[in-house]
């Protein structure tokens, strides 16, 4: 594409295929236009119909997710989900992937992931108040892993720290299944007033279309298309498709947009994310039922000689598109100029229903909006689930020294302290962080500024369960999020999701996606935990090898009284330890089996959603009643790992007895779901036990707090040795040659 004339020349099937469109999709374009598209138009179709923008493989399945509930103000379909948190306030949040770019260029890939998700949230009128990140890297010993960890963490910190939004939580896993495709999922949570929420529907013709923020360059062109294809040996060559972030501009953009929002000038606003100016303008026009005419000569440009298609597909960061009420341009211009941001009137909404682009006096694109947005392909891809694994029998496992196993598990990659990561994130800016990473709670707790309320925020997924059984794994991810929020004393309200899978054109991968969504839908329905926003990232494959299926769940809950937030760091000498929930000793797909026996097999632990709800409601009630010293949910590594985290955070030892009729491995490391470990003052023990029994929950006193060792069925482990191993693993990996 070397000149304007080339842009206007008719495209052909081969060119469409090169941009990732199929023969049938090409046929639809010809049919809807009644002519072949020109080069610019083809580029626009290719990004709008990319998997990343159109959700063409997942759309029909996503519809199964519950998206309504008492707290839901706005569900999926807007830039982010909106829920009611009382007092006329709303919480606006979303999680999004930036996997492909982060693998190619980890610093900028991760940084722009953070920037993008923040824009989705402040676009709707919310001030971002918290960031979380769900990260999955390849095996620690893989040649690329350390550089990727280092770059991604620096990128996340470099962006969030500068903008001044605290990074309060997240999760990090390592597994060889991510060697060729890491996952970087960023979540942003914001707070807005309910009477000041902004949407993307550009209603009304003749209104000015304002471009604000950074200039447009050639970075990120076809990023959405890249994120819709597998990696191969040529991946390195895709580096130019990665965007470059500028958090200082983002900070100014946040302040300027929030200021403009107070003026009443805005009809619609949308950030330019994936597929940049194309998707933002098409989505705003489509939702508003209008057409849009843009003069591309007016687009602020960072480089010379940019072609229309380059401007339309650029994914340059920190840009917003705003449709204003007529005659209000001067107000907007004053605000953006004061914040030293580019501002340009680049077009108007129209009543034609078409997107018309002009460049150097020529119409370079004239296509109906309907086909671009609503007529995007919607596939019912074939799926075929692999035979389900049988339940693992632990009878033939070698005997276990539980103290030894605990030491090994607590310094294994997934369990080891991630301090090396979160100490690089500003967790306290805005001065409302009550619990962040390292804060010894199951969820991050962030006070709603100027109130006594707090949000509890958690990010969860156990990919090895989803790989073993996508339905149960999807269910479990939602249940664990609900459990983590409940353990803090908060009421779980709603979730966002980030569905990371391989190539959906392969039936076994499509089956993972379909079944995980089915499992999530069931859990959301039973737990009353609707999905309000989300993102799907497919084609996370390299040379035919897909990632473990990873539906990351970002949950949000509310605490009416922030001072009641509970964590697992408060266990006191003499406290009794109470185990809540049923223990069968489930070792299939457990961390113990993987780390100790090098076996990734067996069905994952099933979640009994009715019992989950019962146990969570009970835990929340005793937390709020002030009856506990500490509480921790049981997840990876089961009872012993939860107890170890409680002991480390509380800086005191504890004793746990052995299990009845269960081996030490099954009792201490089984991963039965729906369980919590409670530290309770002696005077409260009887009350908590009887109340739990009354609620129909299995409960037993299994140990006590005290000393400087963890003693598991008589086997001692010094707290200091445990801490050294737990804290030492990641620094050793990252800083020793």
């Amino acid at each position, binding site marked *: 594409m070397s000149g304007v004339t080339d842009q206007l020349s008719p495209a052909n099937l081969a060119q469409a295929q090169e941009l990732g469109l199929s023969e049938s999709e090409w046929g639809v374009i010809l049919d809807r236009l009644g002519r072949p598209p020109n080069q610019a138009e083809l580029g626009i179709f290719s990004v709008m119909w990319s998997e990343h923008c159109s959700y063409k493989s997942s759309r029909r399945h996503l519809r199964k997710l519950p998206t309504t509930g008492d707290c839901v103000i706005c569900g999926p379909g807007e830039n982010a989900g909106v829920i009611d948190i009382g007092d006329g306030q709303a919480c606006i949040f979303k999680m999004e992937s930036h996997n492909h770019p982060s693998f190619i260029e980890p610093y900028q890939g991760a940084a722009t992931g953070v920037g993008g998700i923040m824009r989705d949230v402040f676009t709707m009128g919310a001030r971002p108040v918290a960031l979380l990140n769900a990260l999955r890297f390849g095996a620690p010993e893989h040649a690329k892993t350390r550089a990727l960890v280092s770059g991604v963490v620096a990128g996340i910190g470099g962006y969030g720290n500068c903008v001044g939004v605290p990074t309060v939580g997240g999760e990090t896993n390592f597994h060889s299944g991510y060697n060729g495709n890491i996952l970087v999922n960023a979540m942003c949570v914001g707070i807005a007033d309910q009477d000041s929420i902004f949407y993307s529907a550009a209603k009304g013709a003749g209104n000015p279309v304002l471009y604000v923020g950074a200039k447009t360059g050639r970075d990120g062109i076809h990023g959405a298309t890249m994120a819709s294809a597998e990696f191969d040996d040529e991946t390195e060559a895709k580096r130019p498709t990665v965007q470059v972030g500028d958090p*200082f501009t983002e900070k100014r953009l946040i302040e300027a947009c929030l200021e403009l929002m107070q003026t009443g000038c805005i009809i619609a606003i949308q950030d330019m994310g994936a597929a940049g100016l194309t998707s933002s303008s098409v989505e705003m026009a489509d939702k508003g039922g209008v057409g849009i005419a843009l003069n591309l000569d007016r687009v602020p440009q960072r480089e010379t000689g940019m072609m229309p298609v380059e401007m339309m597909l650029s994914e340059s960061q920190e840009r917003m598109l705003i449709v204003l009420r007529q005659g209000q341009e001067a107000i907007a211009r004053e605000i953006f100029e004061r914040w030293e941001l580019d501002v340009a009137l680049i077009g108007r909404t129209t009543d034609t229903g078409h997107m018309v682009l002009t460049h150097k006096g020529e119409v370079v694109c004239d296509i109906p909006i309907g086909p671009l947005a609503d007529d995007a392909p919607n596939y019912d891809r074939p799926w075929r689930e692999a035979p389900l694994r049988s339940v693992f029998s632990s009878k033939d496992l070698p005997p276990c020294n539980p103290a030894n196993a605990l030491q090994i598990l607590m310094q294994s990659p997934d369990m080891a302290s991630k301090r090396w990561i979160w100490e690089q994130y500003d967790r306290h800016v805005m001065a409302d962080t009550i619990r962040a990473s390292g804060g010894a709670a199951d969820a991050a707790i962030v006070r709603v500024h100027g109130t006594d309320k707090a949000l509890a925020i958690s990010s969860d997924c156990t990919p090895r369960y989803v790989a073993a059984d996508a339905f149960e794994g999807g269910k479990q991810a939602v249940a664990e999020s609900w459990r983590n929020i409940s353990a803090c004393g908060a009421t779980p309200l709603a979730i966002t999701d980030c569905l990371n899978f391989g190539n959906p054109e392969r039936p076994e991968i499509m089956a993972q996606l379909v079944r995980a969504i089915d499992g999530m839908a069931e859990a959301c329905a039973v737990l009353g935990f609707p999905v309000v926003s989300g993102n799907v990232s497919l084609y996370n494959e390299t040379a035919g090898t897909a990632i473990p299926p990873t539906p990351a769940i970002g949950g949000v809950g509310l605490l009416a009284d922030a001072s009641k937030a509970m964590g697992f760091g408060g266990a006191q000498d003499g406290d009794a330890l109470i185990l809540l929930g049923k223990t069968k000793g489930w070792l299939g797909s457990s961390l113990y089996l993987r780390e100790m026996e090098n076996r990734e097999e067996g069905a994952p632990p099933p979640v009994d959603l009715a019992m989950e709800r019962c146990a969570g409601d009970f835990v929340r009630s005793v937390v709020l009643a002030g009856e506990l010293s500490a509480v921790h949910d049981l997840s990876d590594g089961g009872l012993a790992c939860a107890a170890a985290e409680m002991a480390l955070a509380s800086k005191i030892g504890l004793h746990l007895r052995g299990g009845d009729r269960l081996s030490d491995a099954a009792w201490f490391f089984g991963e039965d779901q729906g369980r919590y470990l409670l530290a309770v003052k002696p005077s409260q023990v009887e009350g908590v036990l009887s109340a739990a029994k009354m609620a129909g929950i299995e409960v037993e006193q299994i140990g006590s707090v005290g000393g400087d060792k963890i003693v598991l069925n008589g086997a001692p482990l010094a707290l200091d040795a445990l801490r050294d191993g737990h804290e030492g693993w990641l620094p050793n990996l990252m800083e020793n040659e």
Partner: protein
Amino acid sequence: MKAAVIVFPGSNCDRDAVCALRNHTTRHVHRVWHRDSQLPKVDLVFIPGGFSYGDYLRSGAVAARSPIMAAIKEHALNGGLVAGICNGFQILTEARLLPGALMRNAGLKFVCKSAALTVENTKSSFTNAYFGQPTTSIPIAHHDGNYYADNETLDRLEGEGQVIFRYVDNPNGSARDIAGICNAKGNVLGMMPHPERAIDALTGETGGLGFFESLANAMAGARK
């Protein structure tokens, strides 16, 4: 008693500073935009943390040349109090209101954690409330907090009681464990730790309360 919090486009601790000052130092807090060339009549100028102009060059280098800085220099020259926290400290060294420089952390990474501090001088306008309790804990969050000055300057700072805070466990390579200093006159302070984040037990620590109480004492004393 009045205070001004300077707001650069990339300041991100300005709101926290305003809240902390209002709750613990004075009800009268103005926000002053970096492009203004005059200060309102105040006793204290507070330069908050953040990334003033993005800090892609040297942290604080561009901000030190912004229009408001001339007024701040004049305020300092007239004996008015100036406190720079984190990026504010970087700006004050770049503006030559304080000696030395803040280099990239020795570990080359951003560091956010609680820092145990000794209060080396409990007579200053910024630390008088720590009298008799010369240790505290205040969080740090910075990439460029590695304090550097030549030995002669360091000797003079130490000799004249201008070292105000020292790290117990040096997190960033700072010369002589320095976390905060003041000028020779004692009215301009820069420190890397964030006292405005350590004033509420619910959000962590309270080791910064003494800082804001000290300022209130100093401002009240100056008015007498």
